[in-house]
């Protein structure tokens, strides 16, 4: 059974996936690309963005992904395009951008494998080596079944919800997840318990992961900046507002300090950082489930973000007039 499952996972069309992503990007021919996870899928309204920016826009996302995958999107898809898009916005929450070991397994891990080139030394050094001891590194790198572990458990969860319980309660398959997460969303949690829980989770993580100065050198961020610069792509970092921020639930202390240092680092390197974490206009009612925005919320956020992108770059992307930031 294990051998068969390994074979099935290994025979997934890996190189085709990268080629497909590149082909799709070439076909769309965007000037601006938004990269991220499900918060980008739910939070960016492409039509609205195209209206506000006056250029073609595309989103590249994988649910549950982290900076490792965004790095590959930037390097192997965006920067590899001919010609590359002019602007690449990476959307992230809290300190996701400098956590190189986030989402290396499960569904994002499969996509990671799909977007890998023949040789990925940075991913090996910053991702696999940092996240896993030698045995797990070998397993994660070479045994596809190991990489899909987290997604298998999630798939069981989703299957039960969407295919068994949802139909029994006459809830459409596409809606079951939404109902589920609304019932257990951050907004319904006791703020004090949630904050204490998040603090505990943070404390259990690597203590250096929230120390920006210690962490930035271990992240893909410097590589991202260099790669974008070399390819002539303007990199814009967008820190999004989470439901917790919108509800005013205090953020654990180290995370706050982390945000301040990230801002200083970006300013020192001329990398635009648009921080929406304290954007009071994004009120709790604009959030759907989890940190995902509703349709109205997505339209509103996209509108505000695009205006800020234009202001930050000081350039009219449609006409190409004005100074280029980088």
């Amino acid at each position, binding site marked *: 059974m294990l051998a068969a499952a390994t074979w099935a996972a290994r025979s997934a069309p890996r190189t085709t996936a990268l080629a497909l992503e590149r082909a799709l990007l070439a076909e769309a021919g965007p000037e601006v690309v938004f990269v991220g996870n499900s918060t980008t899928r739910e939070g960016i309204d492409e039509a609205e963005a195209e209206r506000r920016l006056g250029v073609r826009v595309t989103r590249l996302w994988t649910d549950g992904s982290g900076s490792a995958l965004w790095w590959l999107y930037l390097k192997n898809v965006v920067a590899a395009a001919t010609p590359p898009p002019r602007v690449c916005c990476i959307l992230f929450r809290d300190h996701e951008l400098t956590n190189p070991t986030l989402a290396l397994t499960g569904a994002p891990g499969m996509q990671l494998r799909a977007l890998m080139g023949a040789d990925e030394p940075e991913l090996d050094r910053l991702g696999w080596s940092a996240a896993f001891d030698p045995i797990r590194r070998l397993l994660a790198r070479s045994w596809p079944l190991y990489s899909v572990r987290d997604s*298998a458990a999630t798939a*069981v969860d989703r299957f039960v*919800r969407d295919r068994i319980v949802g139909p*029994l309660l006459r809830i459409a398959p596409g809606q079951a997840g939404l*109902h589920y997460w609304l019932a257990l969303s951050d907004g319904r*949690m006791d703020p004090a*318990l949630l904050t204490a829980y998040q603090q505990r989770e943070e404390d259990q993580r690597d203590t250096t992961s929230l120390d920006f100065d210690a962490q930035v050198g271990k992240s893909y961020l410097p590589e991202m900046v260099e790669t974008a610069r070399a390819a002539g792509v303007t990199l814009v970092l967008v820190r999004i507002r989470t439901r917790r921020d919108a509800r005013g639930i205090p953020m654990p202390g180290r995370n706050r300090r982390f945000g301040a240092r990230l801002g200083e680092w970006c300013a020192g390197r001329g990398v635009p950082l648009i921080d929406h974490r304290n954007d009071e206009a994004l009120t709790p009612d604009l959030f759907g489930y989890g940190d995902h925005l509703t349709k109205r919320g997505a339209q509103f956020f996209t509108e505000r973000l695009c205006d800020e992108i234009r202001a930050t770059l000081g350039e009219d992307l449609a006409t190409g007039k004005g100074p280029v930031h980088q």
Partner: protein
Amino acid sequence: MLFTSWDFAGFLLVVFVAYWAIPNLRFQNWMLLAASCVFYGWIAPWWLIPLAFTTLIDWSCALGIERRPARRNLFLAVSVVANLAMLGTFKYFDFFAANAAAALHTLGWSVSAPALHLVLPAGISFYTLQEMSYTIDVWRGRIAARRSLRDFSLFVTFFPQLVAGPIERAPNLLTQVEQPRRFLMEQFLSAFPLLVTGFFKKLVIADNLAGTVDRVFMLQEPSLPLLLAGSLAFSVQIFCDFSGYSDIARGCAKLLGFEVMVNFRAPYAAVTLDEFWRRWHISLSTWIRDYLYVPLGGNRTKTAVGRHAVIVSTMTISGLWHGAAWTYVVWGAMHGLGLVACRITGFNRHWKDRSWLGTSVSWAITFTWVVLGFGLFRAPTVGWFVSGLCGGGVTHRGELLAAASIAATTCAFALPAVLLYAAERFAPRQIPLRATLRWALVALLVVLAREGGREFIYFKF
């Protein structure tokens, strides 16, 4: 060191090879003692200090009890007070101080509660009881005091069961420590089914349910369906987490030629509450029975009220042993009251074993009581649990869906382990069937195990 970490896998391999390479019992025990100290001090080396302190006290007091019979009560008192003082300081001081301050406040005196904010050394509640059982048994004359500090220390610190039990007794474990051990292939091979089942329970069932359980018990206003589903999920999580640990502990002990006691015997199959407590955390239940319930009078108490009071107080103390919070205390009292109610109504005798229907109803009532109890056990406060139980209606459809999904997912994750249990219980001779199921568990362990294993729940007790 966590059983589910790769550090432990490497550690166990090194210990296993080195241990069996040593031909001499004395050196084997030295080696195991050193390994146990490394295991325990891996996360926080200072945890070894209170452990060494109580070990030394109990070893000395036991020798004192035997050598100076005239002062045996004094030595016992020193041992018990030292152990309880250690436990009380680390675990209960802040709780009692805060509650005393609150009580004084209601009486009109404003007192600020002193708080120590001490970090609780893992396993302190377990090894404290284990050591106390030793000195009490010596005091009762049931066992002889041991002269070898090395052997006694190994009995206390034996790494497979140090952090979360089973709470061993000297006649079982200490005797094995003192006797030469031989590598037996049968014992070696019997370790693997336990290890597979233990890791499956912990990494697949318990850890996959943990995230959902956490969210349910953080809700500001839980609805009744969500509370019930969350309680069910937590009941499965805590059983798999704790019995998984016990299975791994037994498996590791077998690899080293030891047999430690069985801690769980399918507790959720119990038909009565009495039976549940004979199947759940057996090493604690029997400890409570032998060193608390019986000395308090037990069944020998003359009046029915007295007997019932002993049951409720024993169970309440057992609840408090789990942690310094009112939820644990009320949980213990709830089980005590349940046991008393069973005795008063004759539920134990009349319902079970009468008919298929009677047994089923009895099981359903017992299981519901246990699940509700674990809901209270996990709740942030007693008030939170009561408000969810009494007033929390469904406000939208999603709650019903979420509750049903949580219950169904819990069953889905638990199903393979239930099938294995059923095969072992009802088809013990079907070896191919059991082997197939075990290999299926291995396969599922590979694809469903949660990355970055969580700490075992009972570590904090």
